[in-house]
């Protein structure tokens, strides 16, 4: 990875704010978090797509938009 990932760190004990590169542990943690977030988003997107598909099939059966919305 060529990009340097930056952490901004504020310490309330000293009032100091510094900037530093992410540590190896922090990068590993970030990668785990990203993978988890991507999986979560894919699952949510699939549910939305399935619902929209179901609504389209109901409309094809003759239900009006108001009837579909009332479900």
């Amino acid at each position, binding site marked *: 990875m060529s990009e340097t990932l*930056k952490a*901004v760190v504020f*310490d309330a*004990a000293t*009032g100091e704010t510094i900037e530093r590169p992410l540590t190896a542990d922090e990068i590993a*943690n970030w990668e785990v*978090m990203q993978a988890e*977030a991507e999986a979560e988003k894919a699952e*949510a997107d699939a549910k939305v797509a399935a619902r929209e598909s179901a609504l389209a099939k109901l409309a094809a059966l003759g239900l009006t938009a108001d009837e579909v919305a009332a479900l």
Partner: protein
Amino acid sequence: MAGAGKKTFTAGEILTASDTNTYLMEQTVMYFAGTAARASAIPTPSTGMTSYIGTTGTASIPQIETYTGSAWQTPYGMTLVGTVNFTSATSVVLDNVFTSAYDSYYIVHSARNNSANDVGIAFQFRSAGSTIAGTAYQRNAIQSYLTVISATGTNGGAFWNCGIASQVNFSQTTMTVTNPAKALSKAMEFHAAHSQAGATLDTYYGFGSNITNTAYDGMVLVCNGAGTITGTVRVYGLRNS
């Protein structure tokens, strides 16, 4: 000795040391560079004493504090305990903002992503300078834009969701976190909104819990995807009593 209250001095009256101390000195707003200097100057404070604490030592933000009879505390319902502005950051750390002084904290953060849209912002605790990862972050959230609604949730996550950032317009998030500095389970709720340039408003709200029963002293916000984030974060302690 506690402050004596109110006295109207008359012309020619002798100003005693006792009157000076109890009517004047102990009833002024006393300035100290830090809490250590105050503790040294007033080893036995009296109820109602008020002081202004500067930024030397452990107090990074100046505070007015009043002695309640058992502790020095700010007289306000909310007290700013940490604030930071950040630019092009992957993570934003605030250490030593959670203490035993408060049970609950109110957090306000605003950010935009520098190169990507709809990128989540995640929250993790920190302790003694290290981030708490693992799988103890339970979370549920609902996101909506126009009439499209989607729900997410997990009982064994590595983080709490607490916002989404896009380019151009800043997101807005408010959070409350309960018991971060106590050896108890933690609870969190957040409300967030952001709007892409020329696009629809995206609203996002949810809840979280963490049942590790461990006391933490800090937090980190993470840009949980592409790009980096620029913005601000403020942490306030909510007065217990």
